[in-house]
């Protein structure tokens, strides 16, 4: 089914909500104004719609396959990746110093959203390569950067992130892969890594694995992990490919979704040891990973928004065509199901969640740009703190909602939704991984409770609530029925969030188990309210600009109103659960299950 990048909404979110003009006013960002952003998004859309989207179904029907340690990707993926690389799209956000385009994150984010929406499986390769590039640029030596960064950025090679092992998923302290120092400064790496996305494939000449491993004598736990570059093929000083390294794909997984993405088990060192190069300093591997992880988690949040939007577009198309049952208001014969209130409710729910989550994510992307490029260190630091608070929200909330929205997408299709060939089922299956990888929802929740709320005593969280309160004042000034309804819903939502922050601060130390039992609901509450906040801002702007584009802005106002009426009321329930459910969770002893 055809995908159409929702350029109007993306440009609206970028310009009006996230503040593109603020970003382009930053030092070094002057070239990326409205005209450029629009041109970039339009060409990105053409590529994603024309080249990538048609491969999505093919990827599901004809996934990657493994034979004799070699992986063959879905027919068409290799050519599409070559076009992607040629188009310069891998380098969107990376420094011009290494051949990237250096675009602001705010402009790169819609491009990523479109690519994910076109095909989640295909887009995973560039996404993981981004992670490898970031890790190298953050911590790698000049020698490593010069050898590997440019070819990763150009798309000539791809990259992988190797953290997980059979006994170490959420708990990276349990990583056992080891790296033995050699006389020439390199290391020999041994171990097994699992769930390695695009760990092996046939699309490029080399694959650059970033691997977490322990050096002998390293401290226990997370403080003893180092980061290594382990290329599939060694690279000579002149840049040419050398010997095949001792890193082999022993199998790929047979999965529920994102089937075309080869999920590899990689065996390092079965034949004497894989040559690895230390990134940065020994024992600081996890620290480097965490710097890169913000970008990776944000990217997965974008995947959620993307697949939810893809599912929504498909559901709307179906609902317009499928004719069943008379209109409740009376009709001569049966009507298209889009006329029925329950179908409208489902579609509006999908639309409201996608638009709200997109708005929040783009706002976060702009904050990240300010955090990187603002002249004043204090401004950079304060924006970075807000961005870091929003990252688990964008990841956790957008992904959880994407599964629900993809499920609604199937529901709108009725029986046909359950039939694979219709295509709705694929979005539902593809979405299911999003709450699991790159840190499960619980891990995001632990992060937002532990690191992002308790650690600074709720300062950033409360400051965001303060900004929501300012928006409520703006709503009060608008004074029409829609803004009034939104103001009431938003203030109740904010109150629920503030109450929950207080609960966490009060009980975080004394009853940690009760607090963490409610952590996921706290994450969902934060997402619900913060996305509602953006929809409130969108409502007012849409009202002010109504005459410019009545169809678009009217839809925006009504969608925002629906968010206020039907989505925000969940806030109170979540707050209650956060406060209450910890006790019974604690009470249920393990042997009673």
């Amino acid at each position, binding site marked *: 089914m055809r995908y159409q990048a929702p350029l109007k909404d993306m440009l609206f979110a970028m310009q009006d909500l996230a503040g593109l003009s603020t970003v382009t006013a930053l030092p070094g960002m002057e*070239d990326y104004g409205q005209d*450029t952003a629009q*041109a970039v998004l339009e*060409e990105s859309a*053409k590529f994603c719609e024309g*080249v990538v989207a048609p491969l999505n179904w093919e990827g599901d029907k004809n996934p990657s396959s493994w034979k004799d340690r070699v992986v063959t990707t879905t027919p068409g993926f290799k050519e599409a990746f070559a076009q992607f690389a*040629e*188009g310069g799209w891998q380098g969107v956000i990376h420094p011009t110093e290494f051949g990237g*385009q250096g675009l602001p994150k705010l402009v790169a984010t819609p491009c990523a959203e479109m690519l994910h929406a076109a095909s989640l499986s295909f887009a995973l390769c560039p996404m993981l390569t981004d992670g490898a590039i970031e890790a190298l640029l953050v911590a790698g030596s000049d020698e490593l950067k010069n050898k590997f960064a440019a070819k990763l950025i150009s798309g000539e090679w791809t990259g992988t992130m190797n953290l997980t092992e059979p006994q170490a998923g959420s708990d990276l302290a349990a990583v056992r892969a080891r790296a033995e120092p050699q006389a020439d400064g390199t290391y020999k790496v041994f171990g097994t890594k699992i769930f390695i996305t695009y760990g092996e494939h046939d699309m490029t000449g080399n694959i650059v694995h970033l691997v977490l491993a322990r050096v002998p004598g390293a401290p226990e736990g997370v403080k003893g992990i180092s980061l290594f570059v382990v290329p599939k093929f060694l690279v000579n000083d002149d840049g040419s490919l050398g010997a095949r390294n001792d890193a082999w794909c022993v199998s790929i997984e047979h999965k529920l979704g994102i089937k075309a993405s080869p999920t590899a088990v990689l065996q390092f060192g079965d034949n004497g040891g894989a040559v690895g190069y230390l990134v940065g300093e020994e024992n600081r591997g996890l620290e480097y990973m965490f710097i890169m992880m913000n970008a990776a988690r944000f990217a997965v949040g974008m995947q959620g928004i993307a697949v939810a939007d893809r599912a929504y577009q498909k559901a709307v198309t179906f609902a317009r065509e499928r004719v069943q049952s008379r209109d409740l208001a009376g009709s001569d014969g049966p009507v298209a199901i889009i006329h029925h209130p329950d179908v409208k409710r489902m579609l509006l729910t999908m639309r409201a969640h996608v638009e709200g989550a997109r708005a929040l994510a783009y706002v976060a992307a702009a904050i990240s740009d300010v955090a990187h490029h603002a002249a004043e260190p204090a401004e950079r630091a304060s924006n970075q703190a807000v961005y870091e608070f929003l990252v688990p929200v964008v990841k956790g909330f957008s992904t959880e909602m994407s599964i629900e929205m993809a499920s609604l997408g199937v529901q709108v299709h009725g029986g046909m939704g359950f039939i694979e060939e219709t295509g709705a089922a694929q979005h539902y299956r593809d979405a299911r991984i999003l709450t699991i990888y790159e840190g499960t929802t619980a891990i995001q929740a632990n992060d937002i409770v532990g690191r992002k709320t308790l650690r600074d005593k709720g300062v950033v969280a409360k400051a965001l609530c303060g900004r929501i309160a300012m928006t409520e004042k703006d709503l009060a000034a608008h004074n029409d029925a829609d803004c009034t309804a939104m103001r009431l819903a938003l203030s109740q939502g904010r109150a629920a969030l503030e109450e929950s922050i207080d609960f966490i601060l009060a009980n975080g130390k004394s009853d940690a188990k009760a607090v963490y039992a409610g952590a996921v609901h706290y994450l969902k509450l934060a997402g619900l309210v913060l996305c509602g906040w953006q929809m409130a801002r969108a409502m007012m702007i849409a009202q002010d600009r109504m005459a410019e584009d009545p169809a678009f802005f009217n839809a925006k106002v009504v969608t925002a109103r629906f968010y206020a009426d039907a989505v925000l009321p969940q806030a109170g329930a979540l707050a209650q659960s956060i406060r209450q459910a910890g006790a019974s969770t604690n009470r249920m002893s393990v042997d009673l299950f």
Partner: protein
Amino acid sequence: MKILVAVKRVVDYNVKVRVKSDQTGVETANVKMSMNPFDEIAVEEAVLLKEKGVATEIVAVSCGVSQCQETLRTAMAIGADRAILVECNEELQPLAVAKLLQSLVAREQPAMVILGKQAIDDDCNQTGQMLAALARLPQVTFASKLDVADGMATVAREVDGGSETLQVTLPAVVTVDLRLNEPRYVTLPNIMKAKKKPLETLTPAALGVDVAPRLKTLKVSEPPVRSAGIKVPDVATLVAKLRTEAKVI
């Protein structure tokens, strides 16, 4: 060899157009606009000629509102070297555009002018032909294959009966058809480079061209809604109905 390529900003081919309620035309407010698809093929052909070493400079031209600059930037992102916008807020019909292009041909002296065979908004298929007549240049239309050598262009044309190959001396006007090439996807680096390429803005007055429309649109309406078919008892009834009701024979 210099090539002039004309590009038009039109309603995007994906958009389901609606007629304005006052029936004066099609609704274009807030509707997605793009480069005319045939013009993309024209720009692509010019760029291919440059990559082959045949052309040395590609100048993209567009006539219309100031937003046509976006279309010209796209042309430059595909590979045009510079662009000219003839800015005009009034309706521009093919004859007016042909006259504007004629004055630019006189100014730029290109060896070839390449245009899309028609625009998807008006489907006129006139501008290239009128330009050739006004500028006294040979013309080859509906090109599906183009070779340039020794000051001549050898062009295969799509015609009703199949394909016809003509040869013309340069300078000449060529209009392009669907099968000539497949336009490339624009790369991100080229989008950024295009921002720095020169874009000159002129006006019809500055070129001394009278662009007043010669045709007046009286009414634009949607095609009639398709009604149910009927069965006829015999051929005589069929013929009668075609004559008196459908009025097609």
